[in-house]
């Protein structure tokens, strides 16, 4: 609750900073504030759960996911500093929009009422419509924006229809009340299914994933970084929170739907990614498939599945941020981040190549990176839940994913340098952040117990 308010104030302040002449100081202010808010949020972890005005819930779950979201925003700020040095984008506006989006995300992991859910989704999405199209001179950016907008609004319409039907069946928007009133009638069925589908859209499950590659591919890369991590964590957090709040056990019709969606997402996401040559799009599709893995634990609704989702998301977010940052660096010099353009990176810039390798290994789920443990924990929960066939599909998917992740790695390490202008630019600040994030990836992979302990408390 307090974090939401504070970040909202920070956002408004940022927006106004330009005309109160604080433009130069706004960046450190944001960083410090975010660190402070993060610290404050983490400290409130063991506070007793409380509901604010019947709208927002403050419990371990919301604090854990909220902290994760704020951390992602913080990392994003740390990494995207250079993107604004060229002056192409309006720094203040962007920062404000990102902060507003953060607020939306925080709302999404702590709602107890459908209206908060709706507002959270919109607050999260609307700034992103703008940000996706912020490279105004590039038609692709604009195209990404309009596609995101149309499909996003369409999904909002479906979500609202779902909410309306649930309302019709139960007569309330409050989750706790819905849980009690949840009935067997088909109005409720259809409502919850439609609501789930709109979430499937947000988390990019197949066949609702079509916007993802286009929007991620067209949007400015540092915005893609934010979308592919922050939005995904928020949407997953919200979706799980929703199901967890409404059901003690996912009804079978919904659980089959989720299983089916997850299998389809894993397969199609990985297959489609396997043929991509643009690493940015490749990562977009890989994001789709990663969503499939996470969707596997949704039918269980156990402590284990919640914590495994959390651990997986944390590992995924960090690794994906690293990967997209590297893509961004390549794009700066070579226009487009095709696999060929990664050729010889290990020679021209071994650090970047190493970091990228680590990130991709993590995404592929190979020890000792975080992604491996995440996947392992996820699979454990799914097998515990009895869906071993789903795990076999996931294994097939992982195998395909190794194919395309390693395509990039191979290019980096074995292709001769294909261009005279090697990637040799100053990292400065970002280098330190990358090192920290890489260490984080390995640490989560090797010593996941701290994260696990948190995960079990939520």
């Amino acid at each position, binding site marked *: 609750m307090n974090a939401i308010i504070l970040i909202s104030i920070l956002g408004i302040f940022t927006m106004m900073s330009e005309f109160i002449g604080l433009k130069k100081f706004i960046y450190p202010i944001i960083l410090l504030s975010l660190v402070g808010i993060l610290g404050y949020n983490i400290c409130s972890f063991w506070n007793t759960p409380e509901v604010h005005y019947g709208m927002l819930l403050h419990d371990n779950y919301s604090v854990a996911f909220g902290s994760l979201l704020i951390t992602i925003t913080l990392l994003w700020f740390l990494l995207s500093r250079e993107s604004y040095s060229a002056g192409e984008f309006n720094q203040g506006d962007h920062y404000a929009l990102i902060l507003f989006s953060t607020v939306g995300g925080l709302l999404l992991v702590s709602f107890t009422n459908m209206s908060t859910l709706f507002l959270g989704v919109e607050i999260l999405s609307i700034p992103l419509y703008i940000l996706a199209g912020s490279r105004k001179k590039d038609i692709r950016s604009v195209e990404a924006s309009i596609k995101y907008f149309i499909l996003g609004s369409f999904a909002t319409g479906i979500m609202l229809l779902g909410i309306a039907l649930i309302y019709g069946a139960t007569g309330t928007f409050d989750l706790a009340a819905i849980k009690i009133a949840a009935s067997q009638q088909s109005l409720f069925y259809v409502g919850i299914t439609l609501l789930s589908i709109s979430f499937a859209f947000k988390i990019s499950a197949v066949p609702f994933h079509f916007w993802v590659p286009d929007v991620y591919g067209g949007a400015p890369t540092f915005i893609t970084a934010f979308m592919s991590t922050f939005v995904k964590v928020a949407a997953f957090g919200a979706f799980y929170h929703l199901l967890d709040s409404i059901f003690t056990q996912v009804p079978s019709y919904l659980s089959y739907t989720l299983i089916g969606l997850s299998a389809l997402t894993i397969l199609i996401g990985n297959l489609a990614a396997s043929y991509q040559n643009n690493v940015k799009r490749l990562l977009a599709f890989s994001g789709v498939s990663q969503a499939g893995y996470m969707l596997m634990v949704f039918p269980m609704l156990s402590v284990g599945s919640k914590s495994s989702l959390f651990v997986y998301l944390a590992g995924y977010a960090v690794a994906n941020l690293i990967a997209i940052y590297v893509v961004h660096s390549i794009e700066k010099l070579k226009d487009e981040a095709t696999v060929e353009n990664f050729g010889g990176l290990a020679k021209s810039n071994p650090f970047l190549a190493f970091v990228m390798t680590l990130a991709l*290994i993590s995404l592929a789920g*190979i*020890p*000792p990176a975080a992604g*491996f443990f995440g996947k*392992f*924990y996820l*699979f*454990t929960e799914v*097998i*515990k839940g009895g869906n*071993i066939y789903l*795990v*076999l599909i996931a*294994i097939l998917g*992982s*195998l395909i994913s*190794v*194919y395309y992740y*390693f395509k990039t790695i*191979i290019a980096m*390490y*074995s292709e001769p340098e294909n261009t005279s202008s090697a990637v040799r630019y100053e990292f400065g600040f970002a280098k330190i952040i990358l090192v920290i994030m890489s260490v984080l990836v390995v640490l989560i992979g090797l*010593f*996941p*117990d701290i994260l*696990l*302990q948190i995960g*079990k408390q939520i």
Partner: protein
Amino acid sequence: MITTLLIILPLVAALLVYLAGQRLAPTVAIAATVLEFAVALYAYFTFDVAAGWNFAVNQEWIPSLGISFNIGMDGISMALVLLTTFLLPIILLSSLLSPLKDKASFYSLALIMQSALIGVFVAKDLFLFYIFWELALIPIYFICLLWGDENRRPVTFKFFIYTLFGSLLMLAAIIYLYTVTPEKSFALENIYNTDLSALEQTWVFAALFLAFGIKMPIFPLHTWQPSTYTSAPIAGTMLLSGIMLKMGIYGVIRWVLPVVPTALMNWGWLAALLSVIGIVYASIIAIRQSNYKTLIAYVSIAHVGLIAAGLFSNSVEGLQGVIAQMLAHGVNVVGILFVIEILLNRTGTLEISKLGGLRNQMPQFAVFFVVIMMASIALPSTNGFIGEFLLFVGIFNYNPYLAAVAGLTIILGAVYMLSSYQKIMLGEAKSAYNNVLDLTLIEKSILIPIVIVIFVFGLFPNLVLDLTEPAVNEILHTVNNSIPVAN
């Protein structure tokens, strides 16, 4: 503590090597591996056979999932650690011959791999085992990718995907086993205590068999292997065939036999049959290979087939044979690959048809070549014979006909080994190789230890067999105790 030291030491060394820079890297790396070997020898001499697991360390790691850093060495582990630590200095020394670029990275990767390999052999926790298993894959992948020949990219990729496929299936099986353990833990004792139905066992067995079978490799899962061996740098091939394939065999001994005995009873025959088919199949293919390295790759499949068949023989002799043959094969295949390295170094080719008459220029080399070749075709008094004989005893007790077919390896082995030797070394001297020099000091310093080990182990196999016998008995005890009495 020693066990932890054995795992940590190469990792630290890897870092040091990387920091030492290109010039110092080989020295540091070789010194580190020699030190590691010394530590392993110390462990061997202080090893208490009667105590079962020696040098055990059990540290909580991820308690919420019942995962602990649980390591230790029983006889089998000790034997394989000895093999690994003995071979690594030799492999690193031998790679001095080849013109590798960026030696620092190469040696670091090799050392990381050593650490992971030892980890695989000493892990007493299934999760830990898996982690090390996968960790071992990454360095070797990069070694093959960065230092392989011109075909390396598709080839190593296939290797990587193929092995990873097995690994992932194993992961699924491991998780499944974990979920059925009574105490929800990955510890060895718990995994051995699972109570699975015959059907469950079959599936777990299938998954684990695929995983380990791909690594070994067993026919028909072997097709990644010849091309990978051929295109990898020779040091990489040495690591792959000398040590890495032992991971698969070790995995079966440690994590398949005691865990799914019923499935073994029902399906072991199939595994043994496939192994035996592989022996004959690979041996026959080896006869007509034109590239000597590819030939050795197929030979390796044949040899591993015999070991694999012994795995399923369910007898002390057979399993002791498996261990003896693992050690022998490790040493011999590294020896023969070093011979290849020398051939490549002197002549620049491994096409058998282009070689010939080298005995004229390299008489000393020929002696070592013959000795290693004879060890590889299991001439008595060499190490190869001990393993092969015990394996035959085991397989014969399991099924005489299988042993008879497997025995064809004796004949076919002579055929491909002698023919290729003849074509490479014998005959009139070729003018193209007039200036070829005989062995250098470094080369001798590699070949002599190998030859010594070949004979020492051939004549005094009890040095190792006595070490492993209690452990083997323990494994078989577990196997036979958990088979439900047939009604």
